[in-house]
């Protein structure tokens, strides 16, 4: 199981994602934003941070970077793709998942511990999560207010594209429509979420619920008869 974490110059959760993937039993490595070689990654992670400073609009420049061409091809081949926080914003800007992420309803940056209900247990990202369990992890963003026009929202719900919703008691931290915290694309292989599972990877740090997400992917890939990619990179 190989996990490639894309490093934009302003990524700041890249090392955290590399660490969490390693804890889940994967081999993880960084992929520089100017590279077009994903080095045989089974899972590509777009990590949190401020990819190119995000002075324009979160993710607006990152979607144009060299690595994103390779990431699109990876996604088109049904390769697993996970966007966390800023990575979710990049996925949305790139059209790889539906929706946009607006400024938080509070118009402030929000760092909070939240709880997530898991709406689907049949995705590669959630199949190892026990039914009924809510996940505790932090959010940390200024633009995480998920929005879709009503018609598109209806379509998203119809195809069960919502994977995570903010749940009580803390509730919705940013004003997202229908408390949506994370979605998958129509294939179910590209997932974006605002909360940080990689920061909830050890009990010492407050929660290890995020590991359920990483382990789902690692165990799913291991259970497949052959890994999707067998070529060896360094």
């Amino acid at each position: 199981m190989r996990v490639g974490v894309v490093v934009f110059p302003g990524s700041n959760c890249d090392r955290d994602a590399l660490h969490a993937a390693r804890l889940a039993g994967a081999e993880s490595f960084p992929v520089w934003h100017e590279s077009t070689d994903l080095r045989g990654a089974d899972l590509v992670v777009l990590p949190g941070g401020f990819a190119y400073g995000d002075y324009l609009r979160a993710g607006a420049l990152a979607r144009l970077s060299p690595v994103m061409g390779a990431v699109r091809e990876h996604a088109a081949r049904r390769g697993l793709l996970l966007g966390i926080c800023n990575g979710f914003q990049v996925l949305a800007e790139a059209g790889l998942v539906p929706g946009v992420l607006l400024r938080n309803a509070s118009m402030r940056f929000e760092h909070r511990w939240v709880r997530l209900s898991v709406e689907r247990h049949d995705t590669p990202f959630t199949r190892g999560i026990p039914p009924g369990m809510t996940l505790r992890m932090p959010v940390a963003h200024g633009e995480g207010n998920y929005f879709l026009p009503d018609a598109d929202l209806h379509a998203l719900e119809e195809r069960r594209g919502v994977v995570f919703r903010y749940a009580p008691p803390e509730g919705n931290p940013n004003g997202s429509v229908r408390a949506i915290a994370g979605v998958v694309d129509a294939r179910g292989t590209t997932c974006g979420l605002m909360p940080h599972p990689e920061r909830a990877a050890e009990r010492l740090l407050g929660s290890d619920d995020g590991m359920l997400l990483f382990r789902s992917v690692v165990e799913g890939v291991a259970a497949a008869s052959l890994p999707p990619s067998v070529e060896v990179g360094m």
Partner: protein
Amino acid sequence: MSASSVVGTRAESLHRVLGLTDEELEAIRDRLDRLPNDLELAMFSVMWSEHCSYKSSRLLLATLPTMGKDVVAGPGENAGVVRIGDGLAVAFKLESHNHPSAVEPVQGAATGVGGILRDIFTMGARPVAILDALKFGDPMLPRTRHLVRGVVRGISSYGNCVGVPTVGGELVFHPSYTGNPLVNVMAVGLLEERHLTRAAAPGPGNLAVLFGSSTGRDGIGGASVLASATFGDGPSAGGAAAKRPSVQVGDPFAEKLLIEASLELIERGLVEGLQDLGAAGITCAVSETADRGGTGITVDLDAIPRRVSDLEPFEVMISESQERMLAIVTEARLPAVREVCARWDLPSAVIGRVTDDGLITIVTGGLAADGMPAPGARVLARIPAAALTSDAIVYHRTAAAPTRRRPGPVPGVSAAIADGPPPGSPPGSPPGLPERGMDPGAVLRALLGHPDLCSRAWVTLQYDATVGADTVAGNEHGAAVIRVRGTRKALVMATDAAERVGVVDPWRGAALAVAEATLNVAVTGAVALGVTNCLNHGSPERPESFWQLSESVRGLGDACRALGIPITGGNVSLYNESAATGAIAPTCQVGVVGLLEDVAHLVGPVPGGPGDTVALLGATTSGLAGSIYVEIAGPGPDDRPPELDLAAHGDLLRFLADAARAGLLRSAQDVSGGGLAVAIAETCLWSGVGADLILPVDADPVPELFGEGPSRVLVTVAPDAVGALVALAGEHGVPVRTLGSTGGDQLRIRLVGQGSPGSAEDRGGGIADDLDEPLGVLRDAWEHGLPRAMGDDDWPPAPDSSAG
């Protein structure tokens, strides 16, 4: 263009325009054996500012204890560095950005964060935590609210983007800061000791490489103008508006690139020395690195990349454009250095060469291979590096204790120390206020809702406290805890001051700050590694104000010597005054970093479930002056600041480390602002479990309940561990009293007379009743205090009201 075209003023008065006195001009002439030209004068003016030269405080700071067996870098370097074992070390420093933040709060605070982070990674350390100590005036004033919002936004936007968690600090409101807020930022970093890098320029022939942002006109004169002038409040030339163009603008994305590139350069051994550019820009960087290296540097002015084309030489030399670094590099490693910079999208340029002549030489027209001016080039300035830095002017200022203690800006405190009502009080004001007798529940609710004591969530939820995935505890309560990945260790950090006591007695204010910060760290089980500090005071040219500074330094030194903790670095900020509110309360901000050898032994501040025993460690001392209680309830004629027994404090610190290692404590919380009652209430609110306690009190129960005497810790213990706790406390000579147990959803404190029970009235106490409050009522006061004070009554937004 000649060097004499600095500004359009007449040369003879230029030094005064730049903030240098006639005496200082003479001192410059002594060091140069001639009069300086205008460019040289501009360079001296920024380097001899109080901010860069420490000219008023240097002699005082020399008295501080700085030695420790694990200290690998102390004062004089960009940050203190202390060994923590396993080949690792921690770098930390506290620094002020007060005046820029008063002018433009967002950028002032943001660049304050950027500057202190550069001090950390310049040493070779990756920044792992930011703490902020913020002090403002009355929160009811629109100007204060503007400053608070701006400063918090500046810190949050910069720290969050650069990817360093903001995990702690202080937020204090006191009228003396109304015209002059304080923004003190502490940064902590981790490094492998072998990567420790000095900000020096060794090896004549080596190249000086500038990388990062290009140089513009921002921050011109910031060091001399912003750090040395007293703020006027009016619209006159001295007012904030006139100074706005001097403030630097921060770019956290560029800083993130600088961090990654600098650490890569250091880890690969590509640089001989590294220095960040802050106050006084290139002038400071080249003169300090040359002076530390015992060398000189010749600067090729034309080679410095610029943002605008029409910069004057003096502007290039003193610009405070942010996010720039100076590396000293051998010729052979230059290509590798430039490759690293290019990969991180950072422009780099060779701007000069290290020489053996001890001089800072500024040249236009190019350099020859030996670093000397090329044929036909012109020398614009030539100054001994030492004259700008280690041999800068030093003042022996006059200190004079106030003959008649002037009332401080807080009516309560001032009345406590003045003979009668403070001047300016309404006629007939009594020395004490009748509210002192009110019921203890009402006092506790008022204290919990006080802007200094209530929940900080309104501010701290804007800070990313978990980026980096190393934060064990941050922001919510008590000290911040950052684990050291790959080891069992954790770093514990806190910053504190005792400004309200400082008004009454600056020695005690500084010593109490050390006591509080060390205790904050020690309650977790950690052992303090070192102290950093920021001395915030008024003008050193006034004897009374300089006396406050010297007393603060004495208190800081006395406390650290008594506790055996080295002072590894710090910062001095003077001229913190405004026309409206005068000098600020003497504020010795203290930062402490401690080491927990095994994070499994961490003791948190939050009690567990019901049924645990609640105990108080340490003796209560009388003394209410400088407490929040006095601010709310009014002063009494006999109020004195609390006593501090540094030997007993040291015993308590050692006991806490032993008790944590022995696993005796379920939770520990130091008693500080608002006293024991507030400490108990906070822990109940955090755990959601009440407590039923009996507190033996003297005739006046107020010092026991609400006094802020130091060296006390509230702990919870499993009932079967009480015996062991009492025994261990006895070995350390630490007094311990059990008060009751946790449980229920009320906080109940029954007050009983020492020796014999009886009603409070019979004992003549000011408090008539027991304290008995539902947690829900206390929580309402505590959660809404800050948003109410800031006029943000709708916060938190409705979806979150069920939190907790």
